[in-house]
């Protein structure tokens, strides 16, 4: 029983990271109808931004001395990584996607794959392909609860993921930017006629989605111990499946999809075979596309001709 609960706990923490990344896919899709395949690499860059900024703030010294990294510095690392990667997301949009925005939908999709490959190889060149151990931005504290091992890192992952998602919900529902985003996703032409600045809204969408992925990158590094320049490939694909499972374009759907994919992966690895851990995600993708293509919370939209 405790083994099962442990697998559930591990699955939940992995799932909340997927959910954070899935939000970026779903927001961009909701507004541009573009699957941003470079989003996994944005997530990877977020992990590296955290790695280097923590290094500059002297995290190795704190590790060596046994004193925990101060919380305000940890938050500074998180903010720096989210801000710098938001800038990266906005630049990608401006340089790669805006010039092809009015082209047929296949063109931006292929551009996205190109950006993804470019970022992977640039990262291998700049950061070296060797895996790196993630610094202890949060000093690990372990405690046991009925045979299940919990760590403060796992709890922080839940907490940070939930807080950020709550923040996003408020932003989308309560602010003018959020209202503009919703208007744009309903009907871009009508939104423009109402005087909404389309470019500024799309920029905001990329900035927010990328910042959430950066937070996901730091949490992933803390949870999974090592990071490498190709970590965004598979993780990004799984988060994409999570967005499809929840209903692409739907923000609460991304959260539910992420958690379900994390649980499915962990339970498959634990009880069937670790060899199928990646396969199960794609089996789910195929099933969703066959049975309920609009996803769990998605709504069927009539395409007007």
């Amino acid at each position, binding site marked *: 029983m405790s083994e099962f609960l442990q697998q559930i706990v591990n699955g939940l923490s992995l799932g909340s990271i997927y959910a954070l990344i899935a939000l970026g896919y779903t927001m961009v899709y909701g507004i541009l109808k573009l699957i941003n395949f470079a989003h996994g690499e944005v997530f990877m860059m977020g992990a590296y931004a955290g790695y280097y900024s923590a290094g500059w703030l002297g995290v190795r010294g704190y590790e060596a001395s046994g004193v925990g990294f101060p919380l305000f510095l940890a938050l500074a690392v998180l903010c720096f990584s989210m801000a710098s990667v938001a800038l990266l997301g906005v630049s990608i949009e401006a340089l790669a996607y805006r010039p092809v925005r009015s082209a047929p939908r296949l063109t931006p999709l292929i551009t996205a794959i190109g950006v993804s490959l470019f970022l992977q190889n640039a990262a291998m060149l700049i950061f070296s392909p*060797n895996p790196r151990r993630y610094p202890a931005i949060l000093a690990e504290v372990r405690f046991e609860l009925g045979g299940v091992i919990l760590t403060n890192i796992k709890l922080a992952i839940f907490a940070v993921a939930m807080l950020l998602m709550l923040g996003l919900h408020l932003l989308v529902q309560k602010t003018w930017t959020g209202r503009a985003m919703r208007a744009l996703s309903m009907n871009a032409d009508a939104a423009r006629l109402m005087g909404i600045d389309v470019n500024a809204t799309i920029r905001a969408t990329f900035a927010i989605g990328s910042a959430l992925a950066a937070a996901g990158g730091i949490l992933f590094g803390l949870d999974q*111990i090592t990071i490498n320049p190709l970590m965004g490939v598979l993780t990004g694909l799984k988060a994409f499946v999570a967005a499809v499972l929840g209903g692409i374009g739907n923000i609460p759907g991304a959260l539910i999809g992420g958690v379900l994919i994390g649980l499915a992966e962990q339970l498959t690895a634990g009880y069937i075979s670790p060899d199928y*851990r990646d396969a199960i995600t794609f089996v789910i993708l195929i099933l969703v596309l066959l049975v309920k293509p609009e996803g769990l919370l998605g709504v069927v939209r009539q395409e007007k001709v």
Partner: protein
Amino acid sequence: MRPAPPTGPSAAACSLQSPLLGSARARGSSRRFWLAAALSALAGWGCKESKPDATAGSSTNPPSAAASNEIVIGHYGSLTGNTAHFGQDTDKAIRLAVDEVNAAGGVLGKKVRVVTLDDRGDSAEAANAVTRLIDVENVNTIIGEVASSLSLAGGRVAQRRQVPMISPSSTNPKVTQVGDYIFRVCFLDPFQGKVMADFAHDTLKFERVAILKDVKNDYSIGLADAFKAAFTARGGQIPVEQSYSAGDTDFSAQITAIKAANIQGLYVPGYYAEVGAIARTAQRLGVKVPLMGGDGWDAPDLFQIGGDALNGSFYSNHFAPDAATAKSQKFVSDFKAKYGQEPTGLGALGYDAAGVLFEAIRAGGKTDRAGIREALTHVKNFEGVSGTISINANRDADKSAVIVAIEGGKGKYRATVKP
């Protein structure tokens, strides 16, 4: 520098290319390289039985190098890429050995020169590098590679062109089965797996051990099988066997399943990056048993990633820097003096591969490819820094392994196991 490249009727054509090719030295040889590469590709695909074309540098009559005043050793290794650490360490050690032998007057009165080519850890590049070493650099003999899959790729070319090749540290049995020109100076995986199984059962008194292997890696699978066979033959139990794939970062599902099996030790025959993360995951999930592994653990990054989670673990290796023989102590201090870092086991084997080669050339008195091959088969009881090396009938080395214990974030010599 080797003698000027032969120029013939085609000199005019070469000079046309010279602005592109840069140095004058490159002219003749790079033209010959393209010709040779094309021909060897043809020989490889089209007519495997036929002898290589004379233009591509016939094996029975190697041009210039054999007649010259130097002996050229080609080394191919992963100087960049995912296993860059393996190739760089080996190359440093080979160059140390060559500098030492040249300072002492060379071999048979000839200076030794090393040519190193990078294969980036890629098997297609490894085959290309060997072709280039033979055709362009015109080497007498080749040293390479660390990873078994790359030694297999390069070894097939060396065998076809009949150039003797010594792998310093590929442990997969298939490597020397490529043919009679391929040798190695390290032990094999079946032995390495058995060494750790015996140590776990007899010294550590373990009865229940779990295995966590990399299903994408032949080395890991081979080592896991060898360990399992030896451990169960001694009456031990393997209650749970889990797997991962190279590149995975999440091991919590496997460790959680292993934890439930109530074991005394965990055998992880993988490469250092994943092993480090596995050790940390085990620590985090409260699995307090020692980890055990093989020579794939041997890299400084193991400690960088695994940290204190590895304390109390053991791995089998070719060499321990702190093991006390006069020769290995001298190697360690020379290596440190020259490069400012401690050598790994892979470095020690690179040094020994060069040492075995010099010994064979001295004893055989010949520097041509066939002569070196013949002399290598007779190497017996060579005192290397990684142990005593005798080349057996399968062109493998019969030699002992060491067990390294990890304490305080460092590897410490624990025991030597004879074959």
